[in-house]
């Protein structure tokens, strides 16, 4: 319960804290700090990590190691394909398609088979990796941006996952399922938008 309370506290503190700022309007923040804040200010990345957090909360503790591994491998793969300039168009839609699937999984509140769950986390990671890699230049800068995105992304996943579990304990699973429907709705529309522009 203490961990769920911590997650809920982090989310509440974020809500009561500083107002939302535009991506390029964080005064005086540069270097590592700017990279660390990247997932917070880039909606595509935030969507991915919120989806992953809700998935963790909805799917329970089973297979969490595999899920983290799949998310990490997906991120590395996304960064690699972007760096190699072979990014297929579906990589741009990947976070939203995965967000739709994750949202539906949370909405339906059914445990997914382990391979499907791992694939979902990998595709979420792929999307985050592609978006994050846009900030990179040479391989060193790329490694730095992927590492910082992983750190902040991991913190977001943990905070959302623990907060969602705390809310589930307090109020039942309905708010989690409603959050899943919102996530699926947003992701579905943006998937359509990205695919429309891709074609």
């Amino acid at each position, binding site marked *: 319960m203490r961990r769920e309370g911590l997650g809920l506290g982090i989310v*509440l503190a974020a*809500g*009561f*804290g*500083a*107002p*939302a*700022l*535009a*991506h*390029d*309007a964080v005064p005086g923040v540069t270097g590592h700090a700017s990279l660390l804040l990247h997932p917070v*200010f*880039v*909606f*595509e990345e935030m*969507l991915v990590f919120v989806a992953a957090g809700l998935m963790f909360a909805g799917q329970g503790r089973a297979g969490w190691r595999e899920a983290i591994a799949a998310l990490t491998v997906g991120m590395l793969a996304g960064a690699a394909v972007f760096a190699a300039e072979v990014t297929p168009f579906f990589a741009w839609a990947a976070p939203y398609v995965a967000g739709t699937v994750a949202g539906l999984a949370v*909405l339906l509140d059914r445990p997914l088979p382990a391979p499907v769950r791992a694939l979902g986390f990998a595709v979420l990671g792929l999307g985050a990796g592609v978006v994050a890699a846009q900030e990179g230049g040479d391989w060193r800068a790329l490694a730095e941006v992927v590492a910082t995105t992983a750190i902040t992304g991991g913190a977001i996943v943990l905070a959302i996952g623990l907060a969602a579990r705390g809310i589930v304990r307090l*109020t*039942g699973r*309905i*708010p989690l*399922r*409603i959050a899943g*429907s*919102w996530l*699926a*709705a*947003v992701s*579905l*529309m*943006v998937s*359509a*938008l990205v695919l*429309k522009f891709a074609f």
Partner: protein
Amino acid sequence: MALPRGAGSRMDRMPRYVRSAFVSVALVAATTPGLAHEAAGVAGGLSSGFTHPLFGPDHLVAMVAVGLWGAFLGAPAIYLLPVVFPMVMAAGGVSGIVGVELPYVEAGIAASGIVLGLFVALAVRPPLAVAAVVVGVFAIFHGHAHGTELPEAADPVSYGVGFVVGTGVLHLAGIALGSLVRWPWGRTLVRAAGGAIAATGLWFLAT
């Protein structure tokens, strides 16, 4: 500090979904609003998307009516209808994004207020599946209207997030108001609110 006698027990007697609705609305109301540039970037998209259903009275009355009717029908409609609405709205949004023509969108949006408001006012209690289909049909019109606007938004992703969350907040507001049906005076108030929503929808249809 000691609580007044019965204060805790009254809260305890509230159904969990009522507490959830109140807590959610309170949290949203308490958070700091986005203060970044107007209609630019992520914050601009989020802000325009969030305020679109709130400041568009035709959307507002229909979405409050969904929550109100859900609360009126009780569980499981109270959470099923607000889940059906955004999902079908998203499908309608996709049709708008890809350019599918849908006739009578504005009339459909106005009709949603009239029909859902009347159902609340007249205390109509159809089977759950019928209620879900009714809400879903109207959600297509709302989604299509949003979907056609989405590609032109300053930041389509954050605009999409904003208006889905804005829609959800209106549903929660409807649920919170609808939860008053537990008391006789509240039931009258909720049915009157349904009548007011229907009248507003009629006004939109006429103008």
